[in-house]
């Protein structure tokens, strides 16, 4: 059983058991434009919700990605080092950033489901 949740900072969180896969949404990659570099955290790092967890660089600008939940980084998407364009091609799939082991599953309840996120982004333009 897996669920996808979304944040107002345009991250998606796919929860499978006590591990969450995290990336930026398709809406976010469209706004950023061509991604040329992604700086990912070290495996083993403990991050608190709201900490800077990654940085996405497009041709024009750098954007911070904040941890949507608290936990430990257990895996990073090493493929982004060679092909950061995966974030543009498949933001909500092959362009994932990190996997985290959840510390507090109750944090997930504060996140939006897909329908709520779509309503949220529709109101931004």
């Amino acid at each position, binding site marked *: 059983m897996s669920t996808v949740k979304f944040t107002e900072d345009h991250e998606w969180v796919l929860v499978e058991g006590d591990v969450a896969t995290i990336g930026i949404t398709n809406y976010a990659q469209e706004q950023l434009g061509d991604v*040329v570099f992604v700086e990912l955290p070290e495996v083993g790092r403990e991050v608190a919700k709201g900490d800077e967890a990654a940085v996405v660089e497009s041709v024009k600008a750098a954007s911070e990605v904040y941890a949507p939940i608290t936990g430990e980084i257990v895996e990073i998407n090493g493929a982004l080092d060679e092909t950061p364009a995966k974030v543009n091609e498949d933001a909500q799939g092959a362009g994932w950033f990190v996997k985290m082991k959840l510390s507090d599953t109750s944090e997930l309840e504060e996140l939006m489901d897909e329908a709520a996120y779509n309503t949220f982004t529709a109101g931004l333009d």
Partner: protein
Amino acid sequence: MGTQTIEDLLKTPLHGLHMELGAKMVPFAGYDMPVQYKLGVLGEHLHTRAKAGLFDVSHMGQAVLVGPDHETTARALETLVAADLVSLERGAMRYTQLLNPQGGIIDDLMVTRPADAEDEGKLLLVVNAACKHGDYDYMNANLPKNVSLEVRDDLALLALQGPSAVDILANWCPEAADLVFMTGKPTFFDDIPCHVSRSGYTGEDGCEISVPAGKAEAMARTLLDHDEVEPIGLGARDSLRLEAGLCLYGHDIDETTTPVEAALTWSVGKRRREEGGFPGAGKILAQIADGAPRKRVGIRPEGKGPAREGTEIHDADGNVIGAVTSGGFGPTANAPVAMGYVAKDFAKVGTPLSLMVRGKPRAAEVATMPFIEKRYRK
């Protein structure tokens, strides 16, 4: 421009076309300008280097200095810039900077002596959009009575840049093919009167076309109908000029940087070095003779992550020796590229630098500019 609302923004004559092409618009120097079109910054950058890109640069300031003869007009402008303008041949274009009394750069600009004898005594100027009103005030306050400044808000400015640009333009404007780099002439694009120069801001061959505002859209549409021409926004304009090692006013040069510090000494005329007679000449000539305390250099960060404007530059011992003034990812270089100022002892190509990116040191090296091979037609 932070306090300006969308309604206050000025529009170029191509604004409607940008909207029709699906451009993403941003405020820039008081204008509502396209930052990118459907290809995106990366695609537009690579397309310009491969074929031809069309840029709307109508926000830039176009003006004409009018005096009784070339020497009088040239000498009048020479009181404000360090280029040798008296020696300009008819149809020749020169890059220079308006200077303040401290030798700082008020703006950088292109100056063209018209090709036609009937325009004797005129100099055509193109200045930066964000600086144009200040530039005009500065010139008006300092010009002699017999030389006047005519602002040409009735003209639009297009740039067609890239290896195919001139061949494409020549379909409607055959005289463009006869121009060499940094020359220009009045001509026609079909039946549209225009002024074409072989120049640009991308490091590629290409032309800049000054055209009556009411004819600009027709010209742009004709060019865009060509298979190899794509519209290019300000995003790629910035990454293209950065790879070409060209300064962006307000970032790489400003009122606190001299032409010598900015590595623009080549633009200070030989005769002007002997005679002086431009604002800040004492300081600038002393820096040419003895060296400047800091210098603008090219910087190649190691790895893939860009170092952006404002990044501190440290030496091996952790001392602050300068800052990045422009930095990003170079799509053609396929690597991060940057430029910035470093203390004079660190300006040599190959000098190792440390860039403080988000609080962490990143290895980098002083590099030659441009970061790509320039393809001007000399």
